[in-house]
């Protein structure tokens, strides 16, 4: 899949979709995949989901409900349609 990654952003850590990040796990955003329209990735960046930012999965409610993520001091809920297209790498 096409990736919008930062210049020189080659990272050896395994990357996953944010949607698959485990509860209470932290990761670093490394990009948005090509399936995400540019306006959504721009808005997410404005909200704090920008490349290089740490993101923590706070809650994974059942039944496919949107999951709860923390970036900086702000908490957002994102559904799979969005979180599946945000690529993250596990934060050491």
């Amino acid at each position, binding site marked *: 899949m096409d990736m919008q990654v930062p210049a020189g952003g080659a990272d050896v850590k395994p990357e996953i979709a944010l949607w698959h990040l485990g509860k209470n796990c932290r990761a670093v955003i490394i990009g948005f995949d090509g399936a995400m329209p540019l306006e*959504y990735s*721009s*808005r*997410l960046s404005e909200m704090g989901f920008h490349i290089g930012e740490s993101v923590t999965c706070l809650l994974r409610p059942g039944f496919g409900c949107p999951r*709860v993520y923390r970036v*900086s*001091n702000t908490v957002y809920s994102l559904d799979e*349609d*969005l979180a599946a297209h945000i690529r993250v790498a596990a934060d050491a």
Partner: protein
Amino acid sequence: MLIGSPNCGKTLLFNRLTGLRHKVANFPGITVELASGPMSGLSGTTLVDYPGSYSLQPLSRDESVAVDEFKRGLRDPEVSHVICVVDVTRMEKSLYLTLQVIRLARRSGKRVIVAANMIDVLDAHGIELDFEGLSRELDAPVIPISARTGIGIERLLAQLREAPPADGSAVDSVGDIEISADLLVQQAAHGLARRYGPRSDVLVRSQHRLDAFFLHTWFGGLAFFAIMYLLFQSIFTGAAPAMGAVESGIAALADWVVPHLPAGVAADFTSDALFSGVGAFLVFVPQIFVLTLVVGLLEDSGYMARAALICHRPLRVFGLTGKSFIPMLSGVACAIPGVYAARAIDSPRKRRLTYMAIPLMPCSARLPVYALLIAAFIPATTAMSGLVGLQGLAMFLVYFLGLMLGLIVAGLAARRDRDPAPDVPFVLEMPPYRMPALVPLLRQSLHRCRHFVAKAGGVILGVTVVVWVLGYFPNGGADLQSSWLAAIGRTIEPIFTPLGLDWRYGVAILTSFLAREVFVGTLGTIFGIEFAEENMVPLVERIHASGLEAASGFALLAFFSMALMCVSTLVILARESGSWKLPLKMFFAYGAAGYLGAIAIYQLLSLDIF
């Protein structure tokens, strides 16, 4: 001009600076329109509040309108200052917009003041921030304030009085960056938030503890149903004493006033039209107060965003989104703010479907009708020390029915929707939980009741007078059955016969097309004339005396649940959807569905098996 990111407390600050009482709530997207008002601390100055935005890079039509208006405002020579509100507890999401605003305002020669809001929250946690350093970096005054408590408001006003408008030649401290979703601006905002924002995660930790319960896979769903049940139960149990007091008060006033009037037309009009007609409607105002208060408590607490998350998956089945829940629940108080609140839904398709569901929500105008019919046909039995009441349970079921109808209609419409545009995914900021501010909420509920009485009261009084004149003459109230009203009523009676209703109920339904709550006032007037020899008697007892069958009562409930009988809602729907096509379709379709549904219910309940 007042601008800021969503849910940063901008409108609360607007209310504090102007003394106005615009709606505030603890979730993003409440302010959807420009509002303006004279500043109480600065005579001759008008403050304009803009809808919240994450950036000056609009994504939707509504955002474009707001951003264009803001840019137009910056070109206005009368505008001197821009107050940019920043939520200091979540600085990063606010600073990106702030940097864009500072740059654009400077180019236009406007002075920017940054209002660092929610300082009271930081104080409560003992967190101190370097606002002077931030001010130096932004090259703009940063005033720590709390719109909620009033901290720093005088300093903000002093800054507005002292600081002259910028001359437009100020040096741009954020570099030569165009207004765009530019990585450099984001990085600058990110860097500033890192340096000057709160480092501790104490603010998020307390929120997380509550979220772990309210968003728990099982407990979260149970809590949601319990909260919704208590909301509707409280409409009966919480309002009952006040309703009793209003009813007794009106009866006592009538008993005192009417004997002092000369016998004849004046006394009959006062007794039948004013006390029986308008009075019957006023009895239900406490329920509207309780409903508005409880919805306000939920909005202010921050729970609404959690409810939106919980509802997202089930609502998707019907083509809606979790964000549809907030306008739908707002629609329970009144459809009009619900329709406005739907602007926060990014997806045009889901917004349109939400428009279709909102008028089916049981709004406060339906409440007097529901309450009257439930009180007439459901016994007032209670259990568990009054916590569970049969009438409250019936009200919950009626509201649940309204919700289900809205969902089914949206689901059917979604299946027919052939819009090829991709849908907008769900992302929602989860606001921090807050203890609701009771005094503003009480004030807001009183304001809502006053507005309701003023808006509906005029219509009800007008209709009541017409109905009374037609019902009283030509025989001076001696016999309702031979009045002009009866003659008119009998011509339309065949329409309502399949519902088991006689002409009196037919006339009440007909007048309720002006506003649903007129139904109660009209019935009160008609029965006031018919039972003129009796003292003031609750309308419920007169409905019993009229011989209305339970099957007809439930048919009426079904009709009022579905029919779209609110002119104001139709007008706002036309405005928000951009044409009259959708509201007119809804008016006829919901009316026909209500009528046919009511016939089906009446016929079904009239079968011998029941």
